[in-house]
């Protein structure tokens, strides 16, 4: 490879890189929060015993999972009148929440129905069964696939560059345009993505193992596998 790396360029453009990094972090956090909220709501709807709620959950998942993120962001930004950051966050939220809703739905459905009945038999209401028995177990099953989606959200923040948001990937291209020194900037940005992803992944791992010790869940491997397969979608 006949490219001479010139690392001081990173210091020269540190302001751009840092600005990009913080914008990426901002989109990541807001994207994860909004998609978790929407994902839980539509996941519970999708697992409901009510026909209309289930249909609503399914339509939501299909519509937002089966269109590209960039098309959603373009629609929101150029068509629906949202500003760039609103479009990016709403776009990310809708996109990732469709995947999360599917994970949460199958997580809830993975709990054997006998547990519902056992709950009712002990005199608990449907909400109480949901809150005390089903959701804690489902929560445990869904941690690995949810982590995958959170990491997807981190990476998908880069799509916001197409609607003019100067996030990290954008800034590497800006530095390339200014100085034709794209490799140095791309290396720095790539390491930043990997580092943040690594920290998030490690956090999820610790959380899962803590819960594992606490819950001693009877949930079979098969069910976790099922939730995982759905998550890969």
């Amino acid at each position, binding site marked *: 490879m006949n490219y001479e790396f010139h690392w001081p360029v990173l210091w020269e453009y540190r302001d751009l890189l840092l600005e990009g990094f913080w914008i990426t972090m901002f989109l990541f956090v807001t994207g994860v929060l909004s998609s978790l909220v929407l994902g839980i709501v539509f996941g519970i709807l999708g697992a409901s015993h009510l026909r209309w709620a289930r249909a609503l959950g399914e339509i939501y998942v299909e519509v937002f999972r089966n269109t590209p993120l960039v098309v959603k962001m373009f629609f929101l930004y*150029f068509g629906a*009148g949202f500003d760039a950051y609103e479009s990016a966050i709403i776009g990310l939220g809708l996109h990732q929440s469709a995947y999360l809703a599917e994970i949460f739905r199958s997580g809830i459905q993975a709990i054997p129905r006998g547990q519902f009945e056992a709950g009712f038999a002990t005199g608990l209401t449907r909400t109480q069964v949901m809150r005390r028995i089903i959701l804690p177990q489902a929560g445990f099953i869904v941690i690995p696939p949810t982590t995958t989606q959170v990491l997807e959200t981190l990476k998908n923040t880069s799509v916001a560059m197409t609607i*003019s948001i100067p996030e990290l990937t954008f800034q590497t291209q800006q530095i*390339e345009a200014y100085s034709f020194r794209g490799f140095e900037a791309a290396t720095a940005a790539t390491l930043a993505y990997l580092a943040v992803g690594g920290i998030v992944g490690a956090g999820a791992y610790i959380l899962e193992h803590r819960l594992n010790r606490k819950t001693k869940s009877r949930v079979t491997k098969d069910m976790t596998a099922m939730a995982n397969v759905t998550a890969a979608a």
Partner: protein
Amino acid sequence: MNTFFKKYASATALALGLVAAALPSLSTDAAAQGPGESTLDVVKERGTLIAGARNDFPPAGYIDRNGEWVGFEIDFAKYIADKLGVKLELIPVTSRTRIPMLVNGNVDMIIAVMNPTVERGKVIDFTDPYFLGGQALLVEKGSGINSIADVGGKKVGTVQGSNDAKGVLAFQPDAELVYFQEYPQALLALKQGRIDAMSTTDLTLRKFADADDSLVLVGPPFKPDPWVLGVRHDDSEWRLFLQKTIMDAWSDGTIRDLYAKHMGGTINFEIPVWPEYYSK
């Protein structure tokens, strides 16, 4: 289960066949060039001129409803190919991709509304200008923006990798730049009110304004915008050929005709030519 595997194996074989069939289309566009070999010879030998042009930039280069390339630069590229007696192949480029594609040898030259800059000069060489545009602003009617001075604190859309951003900042350092990946997106943003103005070469902006009554071109241009052809470093023979072709096109009226055809009206400036061309 074994039948399933057989199906998979035959699918794989089919896939490999498809990939093999597609390989020629994946290989290098412009032929690899030995050191010291002129692109002029390479192009003549190949019988095809491979030009990097724009397909999103009316009236310089765009795609019509039949899917055909049309525009001022497209016709000029045809003129250059005719002078060489070769066929023309057009490869779409953007502000971001044109210089890497030239340097990497994907194209023989860039004809893509490009300005010369010192930074670009470190990577590629240029001809003299074949056309003089001017950088201007496009705004919504009644926006109150009447000159570049008025965009202080306003959002001005431009394209990442283009030189327009520096042009705007040189004349109005307080402008807030908003970068898009391509001109269509900057234009959309302007029409949707996401930005207050967009800035690039005036002819393109005039074309956009003509197509939409709600948009208006803010003139005259605040910065001259010379369009040059891009060639690789150390390719003097090729550059001289293109240089001569540009002056031929000015001398024989081609540029004037193409201007009338694509931009409409008469051209109101002259490009200084070299002494040999004075008599013509």
